[in-house]
């Protein structure tokens, strides 16, 4: 696409006298102002992006850790604990703890009856 003043096909539109010259100076002034502001902001912007990224990753890590731990902590029943615990991961001590917990539950229920 190539344009020149001659083939810009401006008819039938007209503009106020000196409009393009005035607009050109306004654009160049705005451009100079923008350029200096942009230069000043480049470093802080990069720094803030890096900080935002680090904060996001930390937040994701914390949420993931809390969510993983909560899956068993939320349990208030033995059935729930069984459902959320992978038996292959249980050590001998864990089995003992579970048995103790089950015995305690049975005792509690007997006392209630």
């Amino acid at each position: 696409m190539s344009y020149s003043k001659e083939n810009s096909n401006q008819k039938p539109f007209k503009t106020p006298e000196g409009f393009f010259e005035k607009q050109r100076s306004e654009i160049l002034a705005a451009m100079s102002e923008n350029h200096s502001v942009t230069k000043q902001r480049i470093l802080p912007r990069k720094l803030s992006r890096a900080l935002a990224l680090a904060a996001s990753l930390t937040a994701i890590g914390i949420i993931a850790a809390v969510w993983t731990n909560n899956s068993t902590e939320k349990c208030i029943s033995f059935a729930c604990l069984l459902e959320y615990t992978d038996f292959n991961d249980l050590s001998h001590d864990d089995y003992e703890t579970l048995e103790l917990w089950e015995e305690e539950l049975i005792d509690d229920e007997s006392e209630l009856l």
Partner: protein
Amino acid sequence: MHQKSYTTFKFNGYPTDRDLVLALSSDDDTTRNHAFNVLLDTLQQPIYFHLRRLLGNHEDAADAAQTTFIKVHTSLHTFAFKSKLSSWIFTISTRQGLDLIRRRRVTEDDFETHLACLQSDLYFDGDEATARIHAAVLTLPDKQRAVFILKYFEGLDYKSISEATSTSVGALKASYYHAKQKIKPLLLSNVI
């Protein structure tokens, strides 16, 4: 992008898009102003008149054209040389124009209202037939209007219009056809 010193840069003839973009991004004020003047020499008027057809009046076209060139400067780092620089600037101006139409539109004006506005416009210098076609264009829905102007008045090919409006070529052809169908009766109504 390769680094090049542009402190004493002067274009020899019309620059390539790559040279122009490098000069426009230069830290040197003189080089940058010179490059922007070259850009404005070529595109200021075509962009203004494109927006004038799209928006219908001088004030809106002037605002949108100015914002377009400021956006060109602030978004220059996003220009990926996938199209010509001029096509990319036309794309920005078209989107700027469409955005202005959406923000300012309160009610849809009919053909007669647009015609009366154009005929009383101090900066419109067309005869009855010309006023009718421009008024008819202004009654089109915004995207259809942009397609019709880019195709009929600017003479762009469908590929360039596709880039400017983010629409497929097939949809553009249908849009242009429907625009012509809508405009035709408005032009003929004067003859009958």
